[in-house]
């Protein structure tokens, strides 16, 4: 616990002294290690200690927020008073009366961190990075550069609010990334792989860093020989291993309650309506052990929970944090997340996925005469207001007579969330997870996303127009 209960109470009381009907303090102590290897050498080894507190006061729908990295009791009481005063200047409220008495909510899951990263000698972490570097470089003579990154973070948080919630939590995350560059003298291409989760050094019991490094290198080399992607409309098969960027962008963001309440989402006002093919069920779930978007408590102290967002095509639920839930007189779904003490919590995804269906993934491919096979997705973006989204294809192939054809590079898929979800006509029985950092309102948080193999009968592929590729 980062501050005694008595201090937390005093701070919350100071925050509410001028009125306001909710106060919260989020204390954080973050210890990080990061190692980067590039140009065949360990270039950076960085250790960090960062701590700070964010204080929030809410009156009605108005919020005042302040943060500081001075964690002394006096300084925090002073910050709390300033935040409370800032709110009062915006809007008076009756204020909240009565003593705060703390209770500790129970998490729905416990995560077992087997090997805390701070117990692993830095030399061992460096050795792993060096092994991965050597593995990537051994793949092909055309590999010209390899960057390996390793990072771990131990984030201790204490969250307390005027409704009596008091949570201490520790989040442990490890992450490993490989970026390989291949060049044949004319063309330069890249390959990327990553692994990570809400877990300790045991991550490397399930993930072989050398194999990941070789995969990234092989992809970079393969892309040298890939032809430019075709342009225009065509059927698209997304492999289960491709990751879940599409679902994250196509509907995930649009189901966040803040965007819904501001009428900034195409899914606003559509609870209970059919928004996707009945083959589609979409779930957000931070309680899956070890995934990158997993947690026991969200950043407001609400236990993480599994939320069915779309069930057999029917929109069931949005993702809420405390404030958006309060506006509707309901409970948070435990989706209140923030990048650090410097940020206000907002509704965010955790691990989001399309639930597996019944089809055999191989049959889906076999029964697709032509189109694009997406084997790996890259980053994406959505305009939630109209549902238009794009994402990048990191590894893609032409589909010719139901078989995997030549590799293509430089493809982007663009579509409209509701339109795409409605026309998905095949859903496989597999499921592949990927990890990422999701950006929203300038805040990045770790997320996981996944989907089974799916087929979209028609999507716009943004490539370089080439007559011979046209069907």
């Amino acid at each position: 616990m980062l501050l005694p209960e008595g201090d937390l109470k005093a701070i919350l009381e100071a925050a509410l002294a001028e009125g306001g009907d909710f106060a919260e303090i989020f204390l954080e102590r973050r210890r990080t290690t990061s190692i980067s290897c590039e140009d065949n050498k360990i270039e950076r080894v960085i250790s960090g200690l960062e701590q700070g507190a964010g204080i929030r006061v809410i009156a009605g729908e108005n919020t005042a927020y302040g943060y500081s990295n001075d964690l002394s009791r006096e300084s925090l009481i002073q910050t709390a008073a300033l935040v409370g005063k800032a709110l009062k200047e915006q809007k008076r409220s009756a204020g909240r009366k009565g003593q705060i008495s703390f209770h500790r909510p129970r998490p729905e899951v416990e995560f077992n961190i087997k090997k805390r990263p701070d117990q692993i000698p830095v030399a061992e972490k460096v050795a792993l990075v060096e092994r991965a570097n050597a593995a990537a470089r051994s793949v092909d003579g055309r590999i010209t550069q390899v960057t390996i990154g390793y990072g771990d973070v131990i984030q201790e948080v204490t969250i307390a609010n005027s409704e009596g919630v008091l949570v201490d939590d520790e989040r442990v995350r490890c992450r490993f990334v490989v970026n390989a560059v291949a060049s044949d003298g004319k063309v330069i291409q890249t390959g990327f792989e990553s692994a990570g989760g809400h877990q300790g050094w045991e991550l490397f019991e399930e993930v072989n860093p050398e194999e990941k490094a070789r995969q990234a290198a092989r992809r970079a080399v393969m892309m040298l020989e890939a032809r430019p992607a075709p342009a225009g409309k065509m059927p698209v098969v997304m492999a289960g291993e491709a990751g879940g960027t599409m679902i994250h962008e196509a509907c995930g963001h649009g189901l966040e309650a803040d965007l819904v309440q501001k009428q900034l989402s195409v899914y606003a006002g559509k609870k209970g309506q059919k928004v996707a093919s009945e083959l589609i069920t979409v779930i957000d779930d931070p309680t899956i052990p070890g995934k990158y978007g997993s947690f026991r408590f969200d950043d407001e102290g609400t236990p993480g929970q599994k939320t069915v967002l779309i069930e057999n095509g029917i929109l069931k639920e949005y993702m809420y944090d405390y404030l958006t839930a309060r506006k509707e007189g309901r409970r948070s779904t435990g989706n209140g997340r923030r990048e650090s003490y410097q940020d206000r919590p907002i509704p965010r995804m955790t691990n989001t996925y399309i639930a597996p269906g019944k089809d055999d993934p191989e049959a889906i491919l076999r029964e697709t005469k032509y189109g694009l096979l997406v084997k790996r997705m890259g980053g994406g973006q959505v305009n939630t207001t109209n549902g238009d989204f794009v994402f990048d294809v990191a590894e893609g192939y032409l589909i010719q007579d139901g078989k995997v054809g030549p590799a293509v590079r430089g493809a982007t898929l663009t579509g409209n969330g509701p339109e795409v979800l409605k026309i998905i006509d095949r859903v496989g029985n597999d499921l592949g997870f990927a990890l990422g950092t999701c950006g929203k309102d300038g805040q990045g948080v770790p997320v996981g996303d996944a989907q089974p193999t799916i087929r979209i009968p028609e999507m716009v592929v943004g490539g370089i127009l080439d007559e011979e590729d046209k069907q």
Partner: protein
Amino acid sequence: MDYQALQKQYLDLATQVVEKAAGKGAVAEAYISAGESLSIEVRDQEVEALTTARDRGLGLRVIADGRVGFAYTTDFCPQAIDLCVEQALANARIAARDEHNCLPARYPEYPGLDLFDQEITATPVEEKIELVREIERQARAYDPRVKITESCTYNDSRYLVVIVNSQGIATAYHAAYCGASTFVVAVENEDSQTGFGLAYSLRYKNIDPAKIGREGAARAVRMLGAKRIATQRAPVVFDPYVATNFLGVIAPALTADAVQKGKSLFRGRVGQQVASPIINIVDDGRRADGIASAPFDGEGVPTQHTVLVDKGTLKGYLHNTYTAARDGVKSTGNGARGTFKTTPEVGTTNFYIEAGNRTPEEIIKEIPRGLYVTEVMGMHTANPISGDFSVGASGLWIENGELTRPVRGVAIAGNIIGLLENIDAVGNDLTFFGSTGAPTIRIAAMTISG
């Protein structure tokens, strides 16, 4: 905050930290940043959120036996500082040796820049709140179809930077900037379209709420009723905002770091034509009213005006102290430090394509059929190493030299070098969006996928 007093206090602290590390046989550099910030968000004329912050941190870089170690802390108590020194030294022992690792020596002088507008601090919060309200009022007044405010914000930041190293540098400056933006949605029938307006400046008086609000509204309204178009090849015009998005992809490739590591498409091309002869690309760390302007970079090296591409010819790359030592040249003052949490890498300051001499209207007038692109989506997925990009785009269709109907849901793709070579017109309307700026540019022909 009393920046003068704080500056003295932190110069002393940085000096002590450097001496501690140097006492253990390393060359050392302490970087401290400390600041205050304010952010105001208004919706429907109400202050939805107001954030005030105080923040500080110290980053310590040490070099021992040619090996770099780094550690940072926000806790300035003696034990935390000692731990930071120990960790930096320990990290250096595991890093690889590289003879080019070094710190800059003392400089005789730095450019005198006017970076601290008192008005930013002196203006009361109430007045800043009123400025944001005015942005929203202006946006709504522009057209009744502007019905939803996604956000209307004002923010400012006042900060102090201190650098001390064991080679004789001990320097500091304080600066401030402010900015405001709006994202509004225009609604008509079933269609919703978003538009934005924004401005950043070193001067409070340069933030014009009417301009920001009306621009956001105009951008949203003109996109109402946007439709897809069929796949085709046609001339494409990027408005300054879209052009700056592409410039963001070019920036990493112009750093010496990327070049030395074989990750730049500009590698080995100094002296060659890499863009159309009407293109000049500049990085200027001392530009007047540039929000990235500073007397020195993240290592204490003076900032400068660097021409990277001159009439389409590549002139050189951006350097920090390390990349300069490796190439045997002088640092261009581009040791960029976004935060105290990282070592100074190579990065841009105020980075822009120079203005041409034709108006955007003239440039559009010459196009029989083409696309005026006002927004791109997924720009962060472009690959700065290969130069390949493929992004979602929307904008306005050009027919007989006139902007006609709005277009959405198309994709444009290509390679950044091809794009640069294909530019056949540059506008006179250089506009900065934060620290990156560009004028309107026209690409002779591109594939538009619809």
